[in-house]
């Protein structure tokens, strides 16, 4: 807020100075044409001053960098706290820690009578109004991660292909053994095809809350305190046990590439391409 006002007043002063110069200087020093240019500059700076309310983050780097690719920040968007139960982001001098809380609800509306549906909606309304500080509640659908399974299948295919190649090089290898290995390779291939045929999706609900502090540990401690209060509220509304998400699981809620896992999707893209070619 303070920065915003300083930027605004600074630019407004520059604009006023340009205006004063264009008005005060006599024509013998500055011809009318030059005065108009100064007036134009004063108006442009005035427009910039007004825009600085929302666009200070953009205007200053544009003016400084004068490039088509403006770098607002070179730093990573976040880093993991040492306790691995929150992520940290730096905003000027402050640290902001964000904690993610899993809300394990396994309910289906199709199995609910009308009263239960109404009650569930009311519970959700209560959930939204639970906290005094800003809290974000999210319902997230993402592609199920089959990366490790797909990798296991690919390894199995590679192994059986190697086995097949070795057997074919051996002069005394029996035909049955070669056929058996070929069959095994075909089986793994079919399994990989069927696994990567369609994407599978998961739906999860979670809440996130942030705390600010001048030190990392202070921000984490504030965020954790808020999270604990929130968890007790969520628990009492739904009668469930929410938990704080830790470690690499956090990436699922932050990184776009965790929403669509790499191998799972690459397999799907390859399959689509193959189908298009055929």
């Amino acid at each position: 807020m303070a920065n915003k006002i300083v930027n605004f007043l600074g630019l407004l002063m520059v604009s006023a100075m340009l205006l004063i110069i264009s008005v005060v200087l006599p024509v013998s020093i500055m011809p009318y044409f030059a005065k108009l240019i100064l007036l134009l500059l004063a108006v442009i700076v005035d427009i910039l001053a007004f825009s600085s309310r929302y666009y200070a983050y953009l205007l200053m780097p544009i003016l400084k960098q004068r490039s088509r690719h403006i770098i607002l920040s070179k730093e990573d968007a976040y880093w993991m706290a040492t306790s691995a139960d929150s992520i940290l982001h730096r905003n000027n001098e402050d640290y902001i820690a964000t904690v993610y809380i899993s809300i394990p609800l396994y309910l289906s509306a199709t199995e609910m009578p009308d009263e239960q549906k109404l009650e569930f909606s009311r519970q959700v309304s209560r959930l939204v109004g639970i906290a005094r500080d800003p809290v974000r509640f999210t319902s997230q659908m993402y592609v199920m991660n089959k990366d490790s399974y797909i990798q296991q299948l690919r390894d199995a295919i590679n192994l059986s292909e190697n086995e097949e190649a070795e057997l074919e090089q051996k002069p005394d290898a029996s035909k049955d053994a070669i056929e058996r290995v070929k069959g095994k390779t075909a089986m793994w291939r079919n399994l990989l095809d069927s696994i990567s045929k369609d994407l599978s999706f998961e739906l999860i609900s979670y809440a996130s809350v942030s705390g600010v502090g001048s030190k990392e540990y202070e921000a984490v401690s504030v965020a954790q305190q808020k999270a604990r209060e929130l968890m007790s509220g969520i628990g009492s509304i739904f009668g469930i046990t929410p938990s704080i998400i830790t470690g690499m699981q956090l990436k699922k809620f932050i990184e776009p590439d965790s929403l669509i896992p790499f191998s799972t999707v690459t397999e799907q893209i390859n399959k689509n391409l193959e189908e298009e070619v055929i």
Partner: protein
Amino acid sequence: MDEEGAIFLIFSLMLILIAFSLLSSFGKGIYPIIAVLILVLGVVMILALNWADFIIMPGITSMLGITFQPANNYYITKRQDAVVKNVSGLFYATGYVTANIFGYLFKEESAPEEDEERLMLAPESYERLVMNIDFPYKFHVISSGMDIQNVRDELEGKRSYQEFEMSRALQGNANEVTITDIQRKMNVVQAKIDRISKGEKPIATLMYIETTAIGVSEKAAFDALEEQVKRLQVAFSAFDLELRRIVGRELYTLFQFNFALPVSFAEEASQFNQQS
């Protein structure tokens, strides 16, 4: 418009007004006419930025081909409608759509019975929506408790102003449409005051949908994202939401919300005034 916005607007326009009063310093003939044109253009630009900055700014960056890097590994497109991440040659484009449910409820002045029916239908509608979507998305609700007394004072102030407007409209032979519009606004404010009187806690909410598309090229990712946004708009229309694609500064703010949420309501409210 909030107080801060009014201050920025008044001071910026004041400077141009002062310039208008000094037009005699620009000589005679064509020069003062050009000066007037420059000043009028300035006023138009400031007013346009005040009401539609989220159209003008992305328009300018799109025209100049300017992209932004908000953090390492991410960039915002020149149209400021998507955040892109490149992971090993695959492009992940993320877009945002507004989805304000509570705003709708207040606008419609819905009766409690209708509310009940709508609440009963909501879980099933959401489940149907989930079944019909085959791409990743996130539906976010950021909520924040508000000070009851402040909200009540503010609403009562609004009601008094609208009552004054109504009496002026009735005295000034205003047409039926104007009177109905003022009456509707009064009903909305009264409905909010009644809710608070019944013990309902006022909360401020901000709701939006985030979706991520993938592509082997930037264009493929953008095309997929466009498609996903359209499908989300169709799917969520069952909830009678106001769904608008988020562009410009609000996209940047929502991107930052992925890593750090606002810690106070004032901070949150100051970020969104056009699209939420």
